[in-house]
């Protein structure tokens, strides 16, 4: 294109994750799945996957059991709210980080 050999003469973006960086850092709470209440985990086969359906950010895997991609999970809590068996709890992020003394 044009008369010089530069890449990116236009705004031409290629698909890839993490456009917003480590969006997991946005979280105040993270979803924790109780495998004893999670339907596909309990049954050991494909079932429910309501959390996977409603996740706005593609961070719930459709696996047995479902898993959360913590690199990118923003902690919205929709999965916890919608889980039909109440298997997902939103737990404060601070629980998972070492408290650093001053």
């Amino acid at each position: 294109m044009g008369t010089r050999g530069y890449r990116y003469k236009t705004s031409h973006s290629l698909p890839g994750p993490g456009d917003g960086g480590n969006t997991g850092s946005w979280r105040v709470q993270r979803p924790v799945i109780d495998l004893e209440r999670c339907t596909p985990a309990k049954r050991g086969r494909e079932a429910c996957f309501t959390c996977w359906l409603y996740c706005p950010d593609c961070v719930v895997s459709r696996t047995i059991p479902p898993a959360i991609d913590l690199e990118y999970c923003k902690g919205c809590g929709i999965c916890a709210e919608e889980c039909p068996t109440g298997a997902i709890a939103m737990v404060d992020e601070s629980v998972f980080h070492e408290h650093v003394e001053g």
Partner: protein
Amino acid sequence: MTKTTILSLPREEYVHPGNRACTGCGLGIAYRIGTKALGPDTIVIVPPSCLTVLQGLFPVASTKLPSLNVTFASTAAAATGVREALKAQGREHIKVVAWAGDGGTADIGIQSLSGASERGDDFLFMCYDNEGYMNTGVQRSGTTPQGAITANTPFKGKPQQKKDVAAIMAAHGLDYVATASAAYPLDLYDKIRKAIALKGVKYIHIHTPCPPGWGFDTRYTVRIGELAVKTGYWDLYEVEAGRFRLTSASARTLVNGTRKPVMEYLKAQSRFRIMSPEQAADVQARVDTKWHSYAGDEGC
């Protein structure tokens, strides 16, 4: 057409995680499931909107489909342009799908949408309606409902009614017009599948809850969307070749006759916090009138 279930949804994702959409974004759900319905042979057209941000900033794209960003007023004209190029090239199997916000559909975008509809071009136009210019900080739009507080209706709330865009599109005589909700993604999925099998301009209007814009905790995005439908405030329907029909939860509401009071929906969002009892009663009255006419149509 059999109704899609969670387990029968395609597994493939067309959106990468780690994008810049807000936490709990209703569009995130609608776009993710919607793109599953579209599949890989799709070209997406996007005006300035929340989706622009969700799709990513140069040089990283969160969407795995070829996408064209266009100026605010021109979405439907651009969809036309892509389709005409594909026709000229014999690449007609590729779907052309516009995803615009409410502003880009019904305010600044309505001229080009109306023109394309009148011309009978061939694409699917989807409006994700979060009821305001949310990307730029929650300013009122033509589809902001009456009484809503926004950044430029800060103390008195929007005085005007919500623009009924789906009715405007149906009046264009399109072969397929539908309303949907981000809270009912399977219904949305089926409607998209139906629409893309047709030629001509198809229109789907997606009610899209927005936590920061509407004022609710991010975990309630689906709940709020469901409340809108279960109170009869927002209805899921199709107009196919002129025939109107409620679908999904709205159809069930008509059959069961159980509508929740609209107040449940309104009080769950802080944008309606200054609504007076009279205004709320007016909203209920309008919803009641609308539903009585549905019941009349159904011959009840």
